[in-house]
């Protein structure tokens, strides 16, 4: 590509971007309901009033996310390994693994949260914790373990069978081969999709509010209901975005780096 062509391309890119975004801005601000929308969604005074409390509540989202993620990474790997167990004797375990993944990927997360959060404590067993946040975390771990195990499994299956065969022919057992040869390669390959699921999890922490825990979304609902003004929703959305965007960019960067390395290795 010559310099002139490059400049022309850049100009076209700038022009088309300007046209699209100006068009969108005009369309929205000239809509008949815009003054009302601006007042109910973008009220600066309301934003300033509600933001500190929502930010405090957001710490609960971060806490739920961090605790759940730690368990998910471990349990999902176990589930993936179980589903890849060789031999006819392991069939019942494989069936259980498949049933688990099917069930928890099939049921809406909010339903799992509602059933566990209100159902488990209703058993009235002394040793069952009553905390709604606890049950919210358990539900998220159950659901996301199913998703993340699929990611791990895809990674494990992407490692060429010859790797495992070579390891076994060197005298390594199934477990040794899995631990020293297959998993290190598999996990490295699936880091971007893993991070993608982290982002999903981070957003789904808002569902725990259904049980009564006051996290960022619930706090913004409280403010919205008290004032009949939705600006607090925008405040909560900004907090979530502030956390997910860096993670998304980091994921993109990892993907790009991985692609560069693989292309370099190919030449």
């Amino acid at each position, binding site marked *: 590509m010559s310099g002139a062509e490059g400049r022309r391309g850049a100009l076209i890119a700038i022009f088309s971007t300007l046209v699209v975004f100006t068009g969108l801005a005009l369309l929205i601000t000239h809509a008949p*309901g815009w003054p*009302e*929308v601006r*007042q*109910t*969604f973008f009220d600066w005074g309301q934003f300033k009033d509600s933001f500190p409390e929502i930010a405090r509540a957001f710490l609960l989202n971060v806490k739920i996310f961090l605790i759940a993620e730690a368990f998910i990474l471990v349990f999902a790997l176990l589930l993936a390994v179980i589903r890849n167990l060789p031999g006819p004797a392991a069939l019942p375990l494989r069936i259980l693994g498949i049933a688990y993944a099917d069930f928890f990927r099939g049921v809406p997360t909010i339903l799992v949260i509602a059933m566990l959060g*209100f159902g488990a*404590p*209703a058993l*009235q067993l002394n040793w069952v914790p*009553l*905390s*709604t946040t606890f049950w919210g975390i358990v539900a998220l771990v159950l659901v996301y373990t199913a998703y993340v195990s699929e990611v791990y499994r895809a990674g494990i299956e992407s490692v060429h069978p010859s790797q495992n065969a070579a390891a076994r022919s060197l005298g390594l057992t199934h477990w040794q081969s899995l631990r020293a040869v297959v998993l290190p390669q598999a996990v490295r390959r699936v880091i971007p999709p893993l991070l993608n699921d982290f982002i999903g999890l981070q957003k789904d922490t808002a569902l725990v*509010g*259904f*049980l*009564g*825990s*006051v996290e960022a979304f*619930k706090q913004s*609902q*409280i403010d*919205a*209901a*008290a*004032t*009949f*003004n*939705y600006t607090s929703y925008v405040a909560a959305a900004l907090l979530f975005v502030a956390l997910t965007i860096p993670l998304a960019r980091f994921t993109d960067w990892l993907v790009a780096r991985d692609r560069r390395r693989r292309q370099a290795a190919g030449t």
Partner: protein
Amino acid sequence: MLAGCGGSSNNNASSGGTGTSSNSCAKADLTLVNDGKLTVGTDNPAFPPWFGGPEKSPWKVSDPRSGQGFESAVAYEVARRLGFAKNEVNWIVVPFNTAFAPGPKKFDFAINQISYTPQRAKAVAFSDSYYNVNQAVVAKRGTPIAGAQSSADLQKYKLGAQLGTTSYQYIKDFIKPSKQPAVFDSNDAAVAALKNGQIDGLVVDLPTAFYVTAAQVPQSKIVGQFPTGNAGERFGMVFEKGNTLVGCVNQALNEMKSDGTLQKLQEKWLAKVGNAPILH
């Protein structure tokens, strides 16, 4: 512009009320969502004592179309005074959160135990009060909180409230508990948490407290009600901002207050409310 409009029509109605303004409240002159019908919104399920009668699809628990229960009775009485026959009143499901969504409304007014606050009145128009309400605490019998005598006694417990009610604000502003109160999306979620012991006490308006203890959580009791002076809370019907129907409904409510109809409806449907002990 809109706010000015709504405000002025409000003032006209509450100051005038008779004579010339009654002309504009003739049924034919009313601006309605559906011509010739009064469309009233409330949430589903519709709970006693606000709504009564046997459950009938699509409504759960009770039926707003029955004319039984306090809010149903008030809505039909207002409708009658505006010139609507019973079969000209349509009920639609309006979840609490959509009652105040910006934009055109699908209802002429919503009646759903919605408390008036000055901030809310910026987004929607409120009618005058049809009920002045007190908040109360419900707890399971035999639990430590059940013996509380005062608001201060409640501070050390885990309290809960329903989203969108002013009960939560009441907890935060007047009880100031040491534990973060829980907030539930619906009445049944709050009741489940109370049954499970996930919260020690549930703060609701007093008439709802009677329903919770009588029907929803049999092993529960009303610990007490809070004195009226604290919040001075009142329920109003909710209209789209700038809707001129507010004036006509206020006129009907005023008549119902002066001729004692509103008082009679309260005695009929909310009779037991006076009996709860007061927590100072």
